[in-house]
């Protein structure tokens, strides 16, 4: 089953009296367990598309199916619950809660799922080790570097084992070396946790790592590229 299907999706923003078509008739299928990059120039509709995929915004027209669920008819609470269990987010600015430690930031979505404490501890420890921050569990976000914060954010996004992880320009606020390491980490996490990753980025390193690439221009998909996944090729 494709984790994500978009059919004739349209989204228009109203800026004062001007209507801006952010997305027009977007049709898209994302392959499962792939590393898909949405690319395009600034204002091409990458972030809007990512927001719709992430169920944090609603299309004006069209249907979106995530993990087999058509999300258009879900109530706000049902959408929240759906996001909690099926979608993980990695933000450009990391968006860690500053009053929570690295451990607690990763634990937070698990608390929302009412997972028992012992299981939570086990899961958070596992994720912290996976992102290489086992020794930083009690660090506050302010005590971590940008790369470390993004690692925590990746671990948090994977905490509830979602089918889909969305990342909006995850390397934009990192230097190229750290950015590359974060991409490598995400690649590994995607493989280890069998999640589908969808990025928005125009970082050539990210594009080079992608299994699939979707190129947007003026709110339309102008090109899609499906590449042979390296591990499948091998």
């Amino acid at each position: 089953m494709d984790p994500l299907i978009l059919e004739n999706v349209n989204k228009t923003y109203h800026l004062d009296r001007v209507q801006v078509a952010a997305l027009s008739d977007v049709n898209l299928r994302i392959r499962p367990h792939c590393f898909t990059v949405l690319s395009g120039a600034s204002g091409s509709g990458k972030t809007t598309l990512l927001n719709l995929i992430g169920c944090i915004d609603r299309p004006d027209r069209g249907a979106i199916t995530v993990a087999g669920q058509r999300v258009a008819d879900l109530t706000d609470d049902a959408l929240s619950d759906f996001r909690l269990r099926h979608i993980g987010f990695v933000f450009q600015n990391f968006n860690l809660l500053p009053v929570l430690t690295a451990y607690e930031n990763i634990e937070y979505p698990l608390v929302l799922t009412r997972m028992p404490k012992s299981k939570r501890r086990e899961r958070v420890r596992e994720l912290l080790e996976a992102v290489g921050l086992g020794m930083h569990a009690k660090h506050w976000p302010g005590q971590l570097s940008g790369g470390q914060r993004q690692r925590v954010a990746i671990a948090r996004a994977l905490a509830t084992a979602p089918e889909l992880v969305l990342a909006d320009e995850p390397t934009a606020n990192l230097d190229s070396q750290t950015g590359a390491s974060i991409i490598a980490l995400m690649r590994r996490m995607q493989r280890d946790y069998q999640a589908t990753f969808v990025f928005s980025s125009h970082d050539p390193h990210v594009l080079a790592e992608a299994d699939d690439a979707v190129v947007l221009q003026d709110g339309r998909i102008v090109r899609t590229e499906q590449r042979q996944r390296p591990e499948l090729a091998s």
Partner: protein
Amino acid sequence: MKTLSLALRNLLRNRRRSIATILAMVIGSVSILLFGGYVQNIIYGMQTGYVRGGGHLQLQHRDYFLYGSGDPTAYGITGYQRVIDLLRADPVLSPMLTVVTPTLEFGGIAGNFDAGVSRTVFASGVVVDDQNAMQRWNDYGFPDRPEILALTGTGDDSAIIGTGVARVLRLCAPLHVSDCPQPAAVAQPTGAELPADVARLATPEESPGDASSATGPVGHPHIELLAATTGGAPNVARLEVAKAEELGVKEANDAFIGLHLVQAQRLLYGRATPEVTAISLQLHHTGQIPFARRRIEELLRTSLKRSPLAVYDFKALNPYYGQTVGLFGAIFGFIAVLIGAIVLFTVGNTMNAAVVERTVEIGTLRAMGQRRAGIRRLFISEALLLGLFGALLGVGVALILASVINHSGLTWTPPGRVHPIHLHVRVWGEWRMLLSTAVGLLLVAMLSAWWPARRAARLPVVEALRHV
């Protein structure tokens, strides 16, 4: 991560603002509690005064309260001693009673005929020992000592008068009343001489019971008290004035005369069967009034059904008490509403600022799967914690300040009092006031957070994440 824990951490994030908000709540709650404690003390003081003077409940002829002051003998309680005995012996009432005592109140004319002056007075005949026992009632723990009636240990023909009566009757000098100016020119009496038969009434009757009246302390001045007997005839008693008392209220000072019940009955009833105008009942606690009243009403329907009696509590007998309580209640309510409004806007402002500052976090939480209700709960929890800290600190500071005030030795003279009393603020022990203030503060804090919390919860996730 529990919501309260997260809320607490968020409050600690901006400590200065949280402290300023809590401080506003502390000042608000301290103001309410200190003023409330002060008012409570005044009300307890008034209540204590009324209960010491006239008991918690009074049995009167059912028409005396409305019509009796003009003709007390027409509305007396016949066989009052039987009623008193019955009340004292009643198994339900007796455990609640401290004192049951009769009183006889009437109007008359007091005269110092040697000086040719007189004035209308309001007289009260009492059983001195009972009244002294009533003065010991101190359910609210006031530090003052019980006042002993000046009639204590005096003969039956003794009386006490208000300083105003002493002034009018030209008795300030012999009664050592200070601050008692005499008129520049004393007008000579122009009225007719007292008729001989009326003057003769003032001559003490010789009877065994009068022995004490002839042996009063030497040097005390005398007055004549003229009143109407049950038959409507005038009767005069010659009374030895034991003391002139300052009663605090000019109207009382200028008209009061207190005397022994026996003497008052002799004056009004002569050799007829004496009656009284009221039977006062003092209870151990004011809270027992409804129970005692219910029982008395039951007795009035059964054992005392032939007696045309009615029972009144001290509030009905002293409407000024209710009016004062109402006035202070209104002032207290007004202040509480004002302070509540200030707290409402202070906390609301704090929460609004928090929502603006944490808009991106709200978006992040919502994106992660936090429901709107969770966001609302988070901000309301923060307000709840602010309110809780404000209330606890407010109560603590109010208790400390009240203790400091109570031990500072400050005094004040309440209306209707003569002597200054210690300024006392009752906060400790006023659990209902403490609890209602704390709960009220919590509710106001939560209410003030409701709108910002709702706004935060309804923020579109995308816009919240985009917030700069």
